[in-house]
């Protein structure tokens, strides 16, 4: 981010920026930066809190009033309570859905695929309800069933079809994984009585308690064994977050 500020400012466009990693900004010394103590992925601090977001944005914009630099200022507030996502935060959130037990007499991979399909069947009504009630979904490229089809076909060596013939399989798998996670988030948080989890709570649930998380790990492991370098890299770095 700081490098972009250098490039743009050198070409005559003034910049101010938010910094999530202060140590990096200190090294890169862009013209104007506001360091914020928020989660990676949440540079404005917290969703659905316009007044807090506005405060952060104004603080970044006001650095444009400085007459010389570089300027690196710390934002003075933590994200509001409830947005705490540190590793010591409470991790009490759980999805109200209790997924069905697996079928017997299947290979391990077939069991993983069946379990994913069952979970998705149980989540789908909440996803559909949400889609009817809200115009927005963050699902980007693969509708949930298409994402599951691609990942399951890949895992079972059944000629996975990326949909877009020009899309490399490694890219398609990465995007399908992101869309599948988005489906789980949007469905699980749209059930009655559910409050949005912190990112840490959602990650813990998804990666430790769902068949989807289990299956994605298997996809990741399979990618690592591929001769194709981009599939190898995708399996190593782009499917399962560090620490999970």
């Amino acid at each position, binding site marked *: 981010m700081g490098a*972009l500020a250098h490039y*743009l400012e050198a070409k005559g466009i003034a910049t101010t920026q938010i910094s999530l990693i202060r140590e990096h900004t200190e090294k890169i*010394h862009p013209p104007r930066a506001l360091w914020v103590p928020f989660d990676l992925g949440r540079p404005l601090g917290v969703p659905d809190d316009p007044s807090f977001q506005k405060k952060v944005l104004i603080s970044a914009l006001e650095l444009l009033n400085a007459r010389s630099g570089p300027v690196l200022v710390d934002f003075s507030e933590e994200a509001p309570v409830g947005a705490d996502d540190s590793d010591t935060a409470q991790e009490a959130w759980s999805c109200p859905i209790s997924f069905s037990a697996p079928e017997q007499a299947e290979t391990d991979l077939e069991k993983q695929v069946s379990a994913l399909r069952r979970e998705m069947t149980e989540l789908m009504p909440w996803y559909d309800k949400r889609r009817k009630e809200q115009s927005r979904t963050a699902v980007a490229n693969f509708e949930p069933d298409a994402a599951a089809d691609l990942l399951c076909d890949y895992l079972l060596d059944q000629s996975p079809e990326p949909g877009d013939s020009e899309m490399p399989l490694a890219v398609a798998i990465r995007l399908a994984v992101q869309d599948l996670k988005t489906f789980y988030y949007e469905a699980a948080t749209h059930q009655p009585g559910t409050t949005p989890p912190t990112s840490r709570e959602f990650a813990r649930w998804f990666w430790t308690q769902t068949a989807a998380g289990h299956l994605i790990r298997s996809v990741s492991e399979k990618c690592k064994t591929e001769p194709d370098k981009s599939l190898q890299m995708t399996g190593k770095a*782009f499917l399962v977050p560090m620490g999970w």
Partner: protein
Amino acid sequence: MARLENLAEPMRSHIADLPCPQFDQTPWVNVPELANQRIALISTAGLHRRGDRPFGGMDGDFRVIDGTSRAEDLVMTHISTNFDRTGFQQDWNVVFPIDRLRQLADENRIGSVADFHYSFMGAADPSKMEPSAENLAGLLKGDNVDAAVLIPV
């Protein structure tokens, strides 16, 4: 939280060890009073309009986000899996605060909101972003933008 000391391993070491580009000096452009500035947003969250090309690699290219875009128009295809996406799934303003910027324009805290905004995919090598950024500076000038707010993810 994005305090290095609070991140769990191996994430903490991964981020601490990321190479940072070196710059001998910091460029500086003077701008009018904030209330008279035209502002654009530039994200590195791998955002683009639905149907636009997903970010597929480390090319350092960017996507154009029309200023009339609505929340349902914007999706994220950043290559990294090591940051939270649930905030964006809940509210695009936590990553791309365009509604907040529009509010500030309505309140005359800034001059105006640019017609176009932009997103890179921040995992790309910064040196690969340099030619794109030079091109982008021309586009921003064409939109009469005074200043850009750069927002990481």
